[in-house]
């Protein structure tokens, strides 16, 4: 299978979706003529023309709100918010409008829209350009939240997100855009809500998503050298999340750590830990562990950011603690 960059996989998914369905339109800041701030949308204006691929002014509230309105009126908009930090401006459109329209209007309509945004640190971009805010959206009934961790999933999940009749927040990672992975010649959509066992193991389960999948796999390599076999479950979407796969894995390994770049407090890990404690308490051989960023704004200085964000080392340490005799 050919190797493809994460950003190119997203570009291909957008192109394929637009070719398959002319109601798919694309807009956002600098996405058309300049080809996107991270070059993800390069070439799409030339392919699909200015009616369907548009640059917007710096107006995030209107971008998201107009996507919702367009979705109510027959389009399938895919919009880009340049950094996930700026999703704050889209909250009304997503939370009060898009998420609720299908329910609130008695099922008359649906809101098939996708908001793409990159989250994550590692670039010393400071407190307002590094946040992982996916848990906010996962908290809202009516929204779906997808977080692909490799190029094939980025392609397949984006196709599924665009096909989905519900508003989907599609979370990319700035640090993954340049990463490579295999993408089949004719890639297929990937169902939203189905996790993937990224590595099988018998001793402990690490549930993770996004960029933290690669960190978890590296941690699993290190742990394997110590004789600890770690199963890594890539959730791929956090709303809905694949409870069955997680429960099945934990049922076998009896030990669970949840790892993500976002802060732990009130996060995805908290939800999964609560669910596993409620449904598999008797199977657990150790308390559930969570690995996340320190509870602080993502700081600028190199040394501070490194200390704030979790990685392979913290994940491996958490698994070792799970394995320690009580």
């Amino acid at each position: 299978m050919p190797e493809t960059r994460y950003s190119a996989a997203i570009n291909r998914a957008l192109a394929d979706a637009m070719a398959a369905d002319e109601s798919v339109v694309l807009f956002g800041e600098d996405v058309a003529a300049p080809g996107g701030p991270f070059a993800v949308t390069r070439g799409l204006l030339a392919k699909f023309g200015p009616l369907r691929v548009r640059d917007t002014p710096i107006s995030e509230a209107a971008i998201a709100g107009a996507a919702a309105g367009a979705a109510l009126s027959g389009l399938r908009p895919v919009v880009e918010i340049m950094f996930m930090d700026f999703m704050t401006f889209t909250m009304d459109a997503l939370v009060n409008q898009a998420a609720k329209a299908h329910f609130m209007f008695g099922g008359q309509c649906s809101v098939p829209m996708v908001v793409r945004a990159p989250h994550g640190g590692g670039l010393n971009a400071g407190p307002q350009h590094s946040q992982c805010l996916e848990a906010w959206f996962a908290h809202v009934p009516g929204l779906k939240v997808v977080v692909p961790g490799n190029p094939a999933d980025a392609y397949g999940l984006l196709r599924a997100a665009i096909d989905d009749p519900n508003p989907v927040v599609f979370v990319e990672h700035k640090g993954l855009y340049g990463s490579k992975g295999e993408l089949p010649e004719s890639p297929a959509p990937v169902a939203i809500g189905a996790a993937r066992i990224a590595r099988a193991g018998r001793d402990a389960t690490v549930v993770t998503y996004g960029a933290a999948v690669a960190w978890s796999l590296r941690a699993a390599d290190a742990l394997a050298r110590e004789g600890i076999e770690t199963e890594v479950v890539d959730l791929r979407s956090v709303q809905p999340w694949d409870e069955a796969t997680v429960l099945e894995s934990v049922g076998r390994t009896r030990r669970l750590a949840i790892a993500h770049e976002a802060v732990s407090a009130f996060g995805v890990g908290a939800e999964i830990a609560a669910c596993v404690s409620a449904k598999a308490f008797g199977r657990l051989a150790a308390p559930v562990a969570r690995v996340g960023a320190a509870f602080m704004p993502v700081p600028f200085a190199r040394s501070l950011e490194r200390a704030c964000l979790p990685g392979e080392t913290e994940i491996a340490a958490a698994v070792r603690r799970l394995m320690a005799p009580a």
Partner: protein
Amino acid sequence: MTQAPLLLELYRRMATIRRAEERLSKLFADGEVPGFLHLSIGQEAVPVGVCAALERGDTVASTHRGHGHALAKGMALEGFFAEIMGRASGVCAGRGGSIHVADMSIGMLGANGIVGGGLPLATGSALAHQVKGRPNVAVAFFGDGAMAEGALHECLNLARLWQLPLVFVCENNGWGEFSPHERQFAAKLAALGAAFAIPYEEADGTDVEAVAAAARRRVEPARRGEGPQILECRTPRWRGHYEGDPQKYREPSNLDAARGQDALALAAARLAAQGVDAEALGAIERAITERIEAAVAAARAAAEPDFAAAVAGVYAEARAHA
């Protein structure tokens, strides 16, 4: 025409900003500045001209391109460089970086990573001046790109309704990231001012004396309680949106035209006509370079920020009850 001593001082402030940013550009290329770096080289006349009309107690809210605002409002070079280089001795203890330089002690409410983010902050700062009965004004610096954010429109309305001592200062450099202003905004700021009955004035953002004079004309009525004011300055963007931006989206002629507008060269020519010779300017430049090199050396020698202190610094301490 302005007396030479004042223009000379304005020149010195503009040159300080330009040389500081040129130094940052080099430090960035050498890997000594982490993160993103947005430079305001070419735009120095706007912050310097506007801040020349301000008092220490006046407040300014800035943008992602905020180095000029910080230095013109009086930020010390040591804390400025140390912040942008990520040191404990930085004005924000190394937690914010270039895009968040701030110094509350001089009324500099922060550069801002959010386009339009400074506008409501300045509006609120003006409210505080009004409520406390202080003889101060607030200034909201914003780029032409921010005109498309709802925040501007909401703040114009609120400031006018409440007659706040607020001056909106638009630095119109013709670009918002990779797109020209004409493709991003369908109206004119002057017309927006008229719609809200807010006095509007345009100044040549390359001419520091013109900006200073216009700023005085806007700041004084705001200070007297006559309500908000707008000043729009046309100013050139000499650099990419950020350092490292290859600017493929930009015609070379556009870049050449921008570089032809040089606030420092204009001020230097006027000073020469007034009898200030190249020798005197050279002495000023040398003094600036010395101060900058001292600040860079101090930053290099400074400690990395302490992580435990940063973690402990998320919430402020509660005030003790009297």
